[in-house]
């Protein structure tokens, strides 16, 4: 236990901590690349999935073809969804700014949805009804609210998971929108 002079033959042991640390770093680095942290939507850059859904509050149906022709924000919401209430004001503002906003009523009851809208106001140009959530699965929706930005050709350009009123998400959405507008002009 009594070390005295520098021990030449034992020099290697002084590198042990460094070696252990190097192994640890490799593990951390691999872990950093492997661990999925975000759910990137595989739908971005792809055309919107085909669908045909009834409209809420009016007769007729709405299809993927009807989404084309104008830049559109498709907002997935439901009356049971608390966070939708939170983002409602921001959706209304976006709609007032001239952007077409289509509502996608997700796993809801028509009467609940209508009373929700009459209470808070209706920011949507039209609202499609997906009562059983079948179409939503095609869109990769796994909760509400979710918001899709769709260009004139009907291609999904951006997706927001959670309320768009969140400053960071809003910023990202705005950037995507600006990019889209600059591309089209």
């Amino acid at each position: 236990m009594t070390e005295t002079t520098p021990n030449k033959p034992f020099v290697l042991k002084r590198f042990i901590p460094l070696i252990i640390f190097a192994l640890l770093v490799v593990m951390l680095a691999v872990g950093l690349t492997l661990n999925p942290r975000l759910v990137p939507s595989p739908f971005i850059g792809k055309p919107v999935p085909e669908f045909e859904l009834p409209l809420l509050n009016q007769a007729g149906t709405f299809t993927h073809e009807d989404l084309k022709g104008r830049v559109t924000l498709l907002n997935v919401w439901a009356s049971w969804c608390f966070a939708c209430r939170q983002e409602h004001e921001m959706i209304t503002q976006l709609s007032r700014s001239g952007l077409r906003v289509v509502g996608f009523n997700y796993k809801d009851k028509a009467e609940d949805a209508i009373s929700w809208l009459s209470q808070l106001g209706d920011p949507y140009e039209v609202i499609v009804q997906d009562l059983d959530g079948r179409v939503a699965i095609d869109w990769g929706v796994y909760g509400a609210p979710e918001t899709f930005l769709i260009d004139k050709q009907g291609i999904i350009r951006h997706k927001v998971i959670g309320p768009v009123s969140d400053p960071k998400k809003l910023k990202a959405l705005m950037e995507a929108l600006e990019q889209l507008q600059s591309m089209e002009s």
Partner: protein
Amino acid sequence: MNKRSKRKLLVVMVVFGVAVATVLSLTALQENLQYFYSPTEVKAGEAPDSREFRIGGLVVAGSVERATEGLLVSFDLTDNAKIITVEYSGILPDLFREGQGIIALGAMNGSGTFVANEVLAKHDENYMPPEVAAALKAAEHK
């Protein structure tokens, strides 16, 4: 005891101690590992029958049912491909919500229901546990 044999004794003691500690910790570790499975994997029969494991997914909207008496609650969990029904007796965490990603710890019963003894939800309302996110991603590619 001279210096040399003292040193030897110490080395033997340390090596022995390290060996015992390693064996004990590896045993303890092995016994307490909890594996993670997605609903798709469970449906495919990949999850263990007897052992506890963790299952993760999204709570299917409208699937939460509560017993009129007692604290039993059941809900469906999905990775957007397959659905597993989960039963839990107790108080759900504050962040448990329909459409929210959660993780449950428990085991399968004979009739294809997952009986949870712990349900975890995350402290960030827009958060998705990475295991759940990975399971969803895997299901999307199928």
